[in-house]
């Protein structure tokens, strides 16, 4: 019944398990560097939005890492499309395209969960207390699902591996720097402030940070995250249906 979903997860998890150690170490390094540079650098004296900076920063890093990991499946999908043609096995198989999308999304969420867990460990080491509530899990799910399905969409529509890299350079990286990971977006000049409110990461960061630090959850933002998740699920499905080998 769910052969496509099971197949995609079987493939992704088996490949992942062979590289798990390397990948986990690699993905744990950059948040640690940010924590050391900004967390220790600014210390506990600096407060942002009424929080010690390091407490402000850690939820931002969780959101960022989760984005990198969930969206990051795009890169691997690209390699399997363009270099080894492994993706053709999914396309030739008698499975629904929606199962391929959901299988890949689940794998993206799984990777994001590992990276988030690592940062939770860091937060303990740095003596930062975070509140883990059901609303956090809901927000985290919307966040990772929307970026995983965005990743699937991009991986299907790019024509080669190079264009995938440009998307990362021109969209993903600026988004991480502007959408509230390191400082509150309210500090941005009006033009940029308007711009970042088109980008889903802004809402993810706000909601996830509020949920982890005991702030007020803006339900409109949570709703917008859900809307983005549905939108990108739709585009991913559309893209997998029209992709050609």
């Amino acid at each position: 019944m769910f052969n496509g979903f099971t197949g995609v997860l079987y493939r992704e998890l088996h490949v992942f398990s062979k590289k798990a150690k390397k990948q986990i170490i690699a993905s744990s390094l950059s948040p640690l560097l940010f924590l050391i540079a900004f967390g220790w650098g600014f210390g506990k004296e600096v407060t942002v939005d009424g929080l010690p900076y390091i407490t402000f920063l850690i939820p931002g890093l969780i959101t960022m890492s989760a984005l990198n990991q969930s969206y990051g499946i795009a890169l691997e999908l690209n390699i399997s499309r363009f270099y080894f043609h492994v993706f053709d096995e999914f396309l030739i198989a008698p499975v629904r395209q929606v199962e391929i999308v959901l299988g890949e999304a689940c794998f993206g969420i799984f990777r994001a969960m590992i990276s988030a867990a690592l940062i939770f460990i860091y937060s303990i080491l740095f003596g930062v207390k975070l509140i883990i509530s059901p609303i956090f899990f809901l927000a985290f799910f919307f966040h990772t699902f929307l970026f995983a399905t965005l990743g699937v969409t991009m991986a299907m529509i790019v024509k080669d591996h190079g264009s995938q890299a440009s998307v990362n350079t021109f969209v993903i990286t600026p988004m991480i720097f502007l959408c509230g990971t390191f400082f509150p977006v309210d500090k941005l000049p009006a033009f940029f402030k308007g711009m970042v409110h088109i980008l889903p990461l802004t809402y993810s960061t706000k909601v996830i940070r509020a949920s982890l630090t005991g702030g007020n959850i803006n339900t409109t933002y949570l709703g917008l995250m859900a809307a983005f998740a549905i939108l990108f699920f739709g585009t991913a499905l559309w893209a997998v249906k029209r992709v050609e080998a």
Partner: protein
Amino acid sequence: MPSDKPILQVRALTKRFGQKSAVRGIDLTINEGEFWGLLGANGAGKTTTIKLLTGLTRPDSGEIQYRGRDFFRFFREAKKLIGVVPQQNNLDRDLTANENLTLHAILHGIPRKHRAERINEVLDVAGLTEYRDKPVKTFSGGMKRRLVVVRSLLHHPRILFLDEPTSGLDPQIRRNLWELIQKINREQKTAVLMTTHYIEEAEKLCHRVKIISSGQVIADDTPEQLKKGIGHYVLEGGEQELFFKTMQDAKDKQKTVHGESSVREVSLEDVFIKLTGKRINV
């Protein structure tokens, strides 16, 4: 013997890549159990045709039906009938032979309890039993090719698309593979559409052959009829080849030729060269 029930019917299939027409109006009917060859020079459109027929590429126009039902409306049902050996190996290099086959088994809905048995069966056929748990990236080209071929058989397809299944294999292995494919075709009545650059392979295996050139069919018949079409005997001398109905005619002509010459039976390769004006590049 093949039946006269069509498993695949194709009408007026076309595919363009930008300005370039790769497939220009191909018609094809394959009956259950038939063995077809699709021959053509490099770039003739063989791979594109197979991609169209297996749903990897969408046609610009034309109709594809499996067992009388539209391919795209009954996409999943039709795909269950299909087994594919693509021109380029598409194995997962990081996975072992067993894991690659297991993935295929899952995707094709082979029940868990039959999986291991079926996988061991095809590994044995491929002569890869002792490499079951080795990562594919450690395999030689020939081992990978064999794995791809038996993987396509795992789910007992009713029609097999083989895009140069034997390219890059040494003669012994190639022969084994022919025998395997022929056995599947004979015993399980699996229809086959095979492209190949080894024309003698097509001549030996195929019930019928289509020759395509620049995306169009230029000949379609049994290897026997195709050979009859140009004559039974060929006189080779110097630059040219001449074709004759009888051995005697050929021998008579040979007496008038200067220099070295020889008379032999016509092969499918002669037909191919005559029709396409090209020698196939191996």
